[in-house]
Every structure is written in structure tokens, then in C-alpha cells.
């Protein structure tokens, strides 16, 4: 609005102080009364606050996204509206700042594209949406659930796909809701990091990384297939601090990333040849006797066999040929790494998104272990941890209804964030591979997936083989999406339910990287008719029990603040050194943990030692030793990489209009040589295509990518059909089934060609 108008109103009526006078004057004149049958209601000025300039209510929030940094947020609210946010200074990790995505949160609850009410689409994909009430929505869904239970004599026809859209602990209410309905079908596994998790479990007995804040103490840092300058911006300061103290930073990545530009040395490894590179380094360290014999003898099993393998089958020359890194470099860095005390390796997730990903991580773990860098401050093979996630999982842990029937045979599903501690029972949920969701939807039978519940996941933007997914979405009889925005998934759903943003719900947040804990307070009222996942579960349960008493055990009335409080236990209080959760209202707290993982050298493996030779790994169909595993054979001219962009977390944020100021459209990146071969110039419209599908977008020419690679970022732009999953298939990575229920996906083992449009 014209500020002059606002000024003239202010002048005519006076500043807030004299607003009271004006109000009294109008009241005295008897001029005030809401219209009978009208919308506006009388405003009780006495009960309402007079807001002075600079007077804000302050709340504690935390970013619940799938990100290493899980920032602690300080929210400034005025008159019930979020005005601005800051990073919490009380956390040394967040240290007062968020990121380009986090600061866009100030806009997110108020975006006009926000889904406001429950809605139904008459005809999937027709675009004919109608607003319905929550009662109507719950009624439709409940009736359908009762129907499928009658038909199949179980709830296995109800399928859940949920992943990392919101990691606030109370959001496990969604899984809890499923359990409270009976035995259902769960898409399990994780597209993110499963191969590496399994590898670390075979080697060490758990995934447990050092405190990232201890990286200042490292004398040598290898950033291997990780891009913290984009994906963990808060960790960069510790890497810089180590550099300032004289540490050397080596960045290994097929692409010259932003992180690579900040390292001391950049190695442009051939994609998926990282295992060979690690083994070449290990061979040289062995040859020079630079491994930590004392550590290896005391704390590991199988080193002699590993050493034999290296002597017989690995040479530095071979590693150089396979990886593209010159022999001289491999030798130099290997010696530096082995003699720097302590030295650390950050194993990125991109590195294990290959058919040989798990094997690769095992080779890199071996480098850290043989040099005695495991269990040391400033050392370690860093990947992730779950040590600060010991909540009650009150929302998650629900009972099955009486007489529920389920899947026979096989263990229940285990996700990477599985806290259910499910014991083996006669029946279990049916577990299907989340990384092959399209395939699962198409082929699941006895019963098929009749009702699909989608929460904290944007299937049509993120899942692989999008052409197959479009087919798969025709199969379920009812598709329910719980969402904030009109995503590509909502476009093909039947019912969409509006869910709360972080500012509109009570929850708790821990991190899989740093050691801090944040409470997330409800800072503003939910916009329109949005409900939190806990409230949605309660509403569905209420309706289910009206239709068919006993069909759902989820409580029908929930106090979401109480449910947040119920997640805390004495172990958490002890770990974080707080008396009560209310201490977190003053700011985030850090776990009182030793900064070095495995400092006690009590590994979680069968032998209780670091296992160079893991019999369990062999039992599961892999190699006992961390041997080289071949890569996926190319099936097209260029390798296709689809990593993460700094402007978004998967399909979130890029659609926010504020972000469009800085990131207007998608691009693909091509080396000038590859471009010249194809008659492509900088800025041309090109088609990236392969056996799966195609994508059309503008190209940027750069030597940041090697000449045999085409790269584009995963993203969802509103008003733009761009989707990189059109050219990505669902080929599995080697590992992941052991600890996460399903193998991962070889996301970066994709191939394509490019041509000018």
C-alpha cells in the first residue's frame, strides 16, 4: 500500500497511544457495533496489547530440515506475526547465523501459495479442487480405511511414504498413527546415506562421528565427496580455524565445488573411483610402514588379511589409473595423512550414492583406522551420528488395535531413524523399498497399496524414475498428501491436508552431525486451518473410532505442547546437563559428550574391535575385507550428476518467492570441450536425455565439471516443470539393507547425453 496513505491514517488517527483515545471517543458515540450477521467481532482493547516500537515476543525454534546443521533459531514475533529471525548465538555451532534458506523462513508461513484448507481433487490430476472441512476430510479417509480393512482383513492396503521433510521429533506421530491403525505397508529405507551407514556398522559397529566443532584440532582434513561450503555452512568455520593453525585441507570430488575452492589441494577424482584411490593410499602407507601398528594390534581384527590384499592386488599405479589422480600426488598425500596427528576424513553422502558406495566407505574407514585416527579428538572417519536422539518417541510408539492382522514372516521394517525397538511378533508391517517406490506401487499385491499416505516427502519431485512414478500414481485408490505447498506430489493426490510450519507447532530437534539440542516453540498461530501431524493423527483416530470403535488406538484428543514435553526423559536431561526442557527456552544446549567418537575404543562390532575383516559383511553378501568393487558401467556418453544446490533443501525453499530474487531458474553445467563437440554455446537451451526421460533447461559452460560430466541440481521451482528425476533411474547401491531396511540408490551412477534444443 502507499506509505503516504498509511502515514495519513496515522496522522488522522494519531499514533498508537492516542488510538485509545480515538477508540473511547467512538465507543462513547455509540458508533461501534459489529454488524448483526457480520464477520468482524468487537475488539477488547483492554485485553489486547498495545504494541510499542521494538517490542517483540521472542521464541525458540529450530530448523527441522534434512541438513547437518539443524540451526537453533530465535524468532521475533509482533502482534502475532513473525517479523524476523536470527540464528541463536547461544549455540556455538549456529553462532548467530542461519543460511540463505533459513532466513527465507520469515516469508514461508505467509506465502500465498501455502495450502490453507483440506481440499479434494475431483479426478486425480484434473485440477478441479474443492475446499472441504477437516471433518469431511477425516470422514472420507476413515471410511476408505474401514473399507479396505473389510476387504483385505488387514490394513496392509494402507501404505506410508515419509522421509526427511520434517525431522521435528513429534512428527513421528505419523508412523505412530499408522501403527495405531494396525499393520500397514511402509516404504522403508533411505535415499540419503544407507550404504555408508552399513559400511560404518560393519567396520565400527555404529555410525558415530566426532563433534564437528573439534575439527579445529585436526592437523589434516580430507573432505571426501562432501561439499560443506554448500551443505554444512556452519562447519566451514572449524575447517578454516584448522587451516589458520596450519592444517592442510584436501578436497576430493569429481566436481570443483565451492568447498574445493577453499581447500589447499583439490583432487578431481573420477566419479565412483574413490575406493580405488583410498586403497592406493592404504597400500602406500603400508609399504612405508606408516600405519599405527600399536593401534591396529590392540583395537582391530583382520588387518593382516587386509595387508595381504593390499600387497597382492593393489598398487599405487593402479589406483592412479583408476582414479585419475597422479601417482606422485597419491604418495604425497598418503604420507602426509599418515603422519599428521590427528588426521580426519569427512565422508560425504554423495560419495556413497553409487553401486559400490558401501565398499568405498569401508576403504576410507580403513584409512582412518590403520593410521590410528579413530577415537581421537580431531580425528575420525566422520559420517554422522544418532547419539543425541534418545527421546521417548512417545508420538511414535503406539499400540496396534485389538485383533489386527498383518504381514507374516520376515522382520519388521527398520528405517535409518527407526526408534521403535520393535520386537519380533507374529505379524509385522509390510516393508517395501522406499528407493523403488514406483516399482513398489506398481507391483505390490495381496493386497495392493490401495491408500497411499504421503507426509514429509515430495515423491513426484524427489523419487527416482519419474516417468515410472507417473504410471505408479495411477494405481492407488486414494492418495492423501500432507503438505504446505502445492507440490508436484499434491498435483496428483486426491486429498491434501494443510500442515503446520516449524513456527506453528511444538517439537524438539536434534542433529545427526553436531551435538546440540533445541526446543521448537509454537511462535505463531497456525495459518488458515493448518494442523500439525500429531493433531491430524488425533483427528483421524476420532473419526475412525466413531465409524468403527476400537479401529484406532491413537488418542483422539492431543495437547501438542504436552506431547512435546513427553518426549523428554532423564537420560536426555543428564546427557545435556539440563534440569528440565524449560531450560531450552533460554537457548539450545550441548551434549556433555566426549568430542571424539569411539574414544573408549569399545566398538559395536561382533568382535568388539574395529573389523578390517567383517564376517558379518560377508554374510550379508558383500566382501569381508574392504576390497575394491567395480563401478556401474556407463550406458550413455556423459556421466550425469544431480547433487544439491545451496539455494534449497531438496524440493524446499526454491519455490519461495524471496529465493527467486537470487536463484531464478535451473541450469545445467557442461565442460567447454563437451559443449564444443555438440555445437552448444554458453546460455543455449539444451535437452539432457537418456533412457529414462529428458529435461530441458539453459546451459552454463564451465571447467568446474570434468569434460565427461553433465551436472544439474535437484530443485523444485514453482511455475516450472523442471525435474531432474526425469533422467535418474532407481538402481540400487550395494549396501543399506542391514541397518536401514533397504539398499540405497546409485543416484550419481547415471548417464545421459546433451543436445542443443
Amino acid at each position, binding site marked *: *500500500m*502507499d*506509505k503516504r*496513505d*498509511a502515514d*495519513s*491514517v496515522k496522522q*488522522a*488517527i494519531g499514533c498508537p497511544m492516542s*488510538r485509545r483515545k*480515538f*477508540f473511547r*471517543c*467512538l*465507543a462513547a*458515540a*455509540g*458508533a*461501534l*457495533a*459489529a*454488524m*448483526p*450477521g*457480520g*464477520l*468482524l*467481532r*468487537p*475488539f477488547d*482493547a483492554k485485553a*489486547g496489547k498495545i504494541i510499542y516500537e521494538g517490542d517483540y515476543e521472542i521464541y525458540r525454534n529450530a530448523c527441522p530440515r534434512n541438513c547437518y546443521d539443524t540451526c537453533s533459531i530465535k524468532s521475533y514475533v509482533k*502482534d*502475532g506475526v513473525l517479523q524476523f529471525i536470527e540464528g541463536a548465538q547461544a549455540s556455538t555451532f549456529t553462532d548467530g547465523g542461519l543460511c540463505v534458506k533459513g532466513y527465507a523462513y520469515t*516469508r514461508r508461513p*505467509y506465502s*500465498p*501459495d501455502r*495450502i*490453507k*484448507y483440506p*481440499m479434494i481433487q*475431483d479426478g486425480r490430476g484434473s*485440477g*478441479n*479442487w*474443492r*475446499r*472441504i*472441512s477437516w471433518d469431511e476430510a477425516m470422514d472420507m479417509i476413515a471410511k476408505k480405511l474401514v473399507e479396505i480393512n473389510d476387504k483385505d482383513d488387514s490394513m496392509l492396503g494402507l501404505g506410508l511414504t515419509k522421509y526427511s521433510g520434517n525431522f521435528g521429533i513429534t512428527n513421528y506421530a505419523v508412523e505412530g498413527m499408522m501403527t495405531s491403525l494396525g499393520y500397514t505397508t511402509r516404504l522403508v529405507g533411505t535415499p540419503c546415506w544407507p550404504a555408508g551407514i552399513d559400511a560404518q556398522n560393519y567396520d565400527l559397529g555404529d555410525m558415530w562421528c566426532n563433534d564437528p566443532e573439534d575439527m579445529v584440532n585436526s592437523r589434516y582434513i580430507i573432505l571426501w565427496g562432501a561439499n560443506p561450503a554448500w551443505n554444512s555452512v556452519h562447519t566451514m568455520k572449524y575447517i578454516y580455524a584448522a587451516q589458520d593453525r596450519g592444517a592442510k585441507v584436501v578436497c576430493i570430488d569429481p566436481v570443483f565445488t565451492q568447498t574445493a575452492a577453499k581447500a589447499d589441494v583439490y583432487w578431481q577424482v573420477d566419479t565412483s573411483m574413490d575406493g580405488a584411490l583410498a586403497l592406493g593410499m592404504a597400500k602406500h602407507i603400508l609399504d612405508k610402514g606408516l600405519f599405527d601398528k600399536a593401534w591396529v594390534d590392540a583395537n582391530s581384527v583382520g588387518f593382516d588379511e587386509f595387508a595381504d590384499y593390499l600387497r597382492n592386488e593393489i598398487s599405487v599405479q593402479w589406483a592412479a589409473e583408476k582414479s585419475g589422480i597422479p601417482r606422485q600426488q597419491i604418495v604425497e598425500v598418503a604420507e602426509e595423512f599418515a603422519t599428521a596427528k590427528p588426521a580426519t576424513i569427512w565422508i560425504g553422502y554423495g560419495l556413497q550414492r553409487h553401486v559400490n558406495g558401501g565398499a568405498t566407505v569401508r576403504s576410507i574407514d580403513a584409512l582412518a583406522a590403520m593410521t590410528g585416527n579413530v577415537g581421537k579428538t580431531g580425528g575420525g572417519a566422520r559420517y554422522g551420528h544418532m547419539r543425541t536422539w534418545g527421546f521417548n518417541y512417545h508420538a511414535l510408539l503406539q499400540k496396534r488395535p485389538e485383533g489386527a492382522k498383518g504381514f507374516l514372516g520376515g522382520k519388521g521394517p527398520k528405517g535409518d531413524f527407526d526408534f521403535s525397538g520393535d520386537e519380533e511378533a507374529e505379524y509385522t508391517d509390510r516393508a517395501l523399498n522406499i528407493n523403488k517406490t514406483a516399482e513398489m506401487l506398481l507391483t505390490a499385491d495381496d493386497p495392493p497399496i490401495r491408500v497411499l499416505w504421503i507426509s514429509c516427502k515430495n515423491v513426484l519431485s524427489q523419487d527416482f524414475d519419474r516417468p515410472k512414478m507417473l504410471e505408479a500414481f495411477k494405481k492407488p485408490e486414494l492418495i492423501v498428501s500432507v503438505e504446505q505447498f*502445492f507440490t508436484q506430489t*499434491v498435483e496428483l493426490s486426491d486429498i*491434501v491436508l494443510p500442515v503446520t510450519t516449524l513456527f506453528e507447532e511444538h517439537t524438539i530437534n536434534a542433529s545427526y552431525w553436531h551435538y546440540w539440542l533445541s526446543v521448537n516453540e509454537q511462535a*505463531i*498461530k*497456525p*495459518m*488458515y*486451518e493448518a494442523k500439525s501431524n500429531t493433531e491430524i493423527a488425533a483427528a483421524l483416530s476420532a473419526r475412525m473410532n466413531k465409524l468403527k470403535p476400537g479401529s484406532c488406538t491413537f488418542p483422539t484428543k492431543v495437547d501438542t505442547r504436552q506431547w512435546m514435553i513427553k518426549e523428554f526423559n532423564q537420560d536426555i536431561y543428564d546427557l545435556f546437563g539440563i534440569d528440565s526442557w524449560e531450560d531450552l527456552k533460554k537457548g539450545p544446549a550441548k551434549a556433555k559428550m566426549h568430542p571424539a567418537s569411539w574414544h573408549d575404543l569399545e566398538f559395536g562390532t561382533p568382535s568388539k574391535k574395529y573389523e578390517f575383516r567383517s564376517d558379518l559383511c560377508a554374510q550379508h553378501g558383500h566382501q569381508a575385507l574392504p576390497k575394491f568393487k567395480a563401478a556401474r558401467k556407463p550406458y550413455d556418453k556423459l556421466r550425469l550428476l544431480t547433487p544439491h544446490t545451496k539455494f534449497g533443501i531438496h524440493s524446499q525453499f526454491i519455490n519461495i*518467492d524471496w529465493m527467486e530474487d537470487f536463484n531464478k531458474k535451473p541450469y545445467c553445467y557442461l565442460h567447454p570441450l563437451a559443449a564444443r563437440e555438440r555445437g552448444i554455446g554458453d546460455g543455449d537451451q539444451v535437452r539432457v536425455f537418456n533412457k529414462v526421460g529428458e529435461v530441458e533447461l539453459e546451459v552454463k559452460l564451465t571447467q568446474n565439471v570434468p569434460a565427461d560430466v553433465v551436472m544439474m541440481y535437484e530443485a523444485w521451482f514453482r511455475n516450472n516443470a523442471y525435474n531432474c528425476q526425469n533422467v535418474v533411474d532407481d538402481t540400487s547401491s550395494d549396501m543399506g539393507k542391514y541397518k536401514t531396511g533397504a539398499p540405497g540408490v546409485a543416484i550419481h551412477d547415471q548417464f545421459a547425453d546433451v543436445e542443443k534444443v
Partner: protein
Amino acid sequence: MNPDPITNPLGPALRDFFISSDASGHKRAYLQISEALQNPLPRVNDWRQVEYAFTRLFVGPKSLEAPPFASVYLENEPLVMGPTTMMVRSVYEMMGLVSPWKNALPEDHVSLELDAALVLEKAAEQGGSAELDELRQFFVCRHMAAWIPAFVKRVSRAESAHPAIVRAAALAGQWVENQAVLINTQRNQHLKQGGWNG
């Protein structure tokens, strides 16, 4: 239903139309508009189609074709809960009123603004004051008159422009225009007569 005989039922009916939430609500309000006008409106055969169109224009879940919020037309960025919404909220507070959906629905929704204009009209008819006059002048003649025409145009040019909805929007536009003319005429009269002392 407004039992008050003083006020023409057209205003309330228009207000109710744009906040109605389903086919039966749209129909009820539309019939009330028709009665108030004593003039036939475009005939509607299928109210479900009106509901789909209404939803695509004003509700979602996709981007709204014709957002019914002043902010969108008065600010450069089509966002809500910004300065315009807050200004309108403070106007309601000055009138001693509050939206029952405060913070859940932006105050500059067309129906809430129509409601406020109706309150101001009724208060003026019952006596009023200089302050009230000032407020009504600003809110109806400067604020509403600034954005409602753009809103009406947007509805008529929208992809989902259903004739019934287009007509209701046009009527709302006319209603605001008539109010503005009335206010200015009364104001001029008062000024000529030596006006308010306030």
C-alpha cells in the same frame, strides 16, 4: 441473514459471497444478491462448477488466479501479512473490531473489508463523528477504491472466470464505487454547511 431494515441487503450478500466455503454457500449468497438487486443475475445450472472456479480463483491449493487480498494489488510483491494487512488490521482495531480469524486469515480479505465498510456505513447513519468520517473516507474512498477495481478486472480476465463469479465481483466493485460517491457527496455537503468542528 441480516434483519436490519436500514441497510440494503446487497452489501452483506456480496460480503457473504466471497467468504462462502462451498457450493451451497455460494448459491445462498448469490440468491441473496439477486433478491437485493431485484434484477436477474446470470443463471447458474451447476453450482459444483461455480465451486471449482471459486476455489481456483480465491482459495487454492494452486496459486490463486485472483487473490482476494488488498496486499496483492497494492504492494509490488503478491504477499500477505505485510504492511497492507497490518494497516487494515489497525483500522479494524480503531473501529473497535477484530477479525475472528486474526492471524489465520489476512485482514485485507475482500469480505472482511466489505464488512468493515458496512459497519462504517451504519455508524455514519447513526450519527458518527469527525474521526469516523475521516476513517471511512480513507478506508472506502482511498483504500478500497484503490484495489477493488483491479481485483474485479483480475477476476474477469482469469482463466476460471465463471460468469456468476465475474458478476458478483463486478457488483462488489460497483457497490464500493457507489459508497465512495455517497461518502464524498455527504462530505462536500457537510463542508458547505460548515461541517464538523473536529
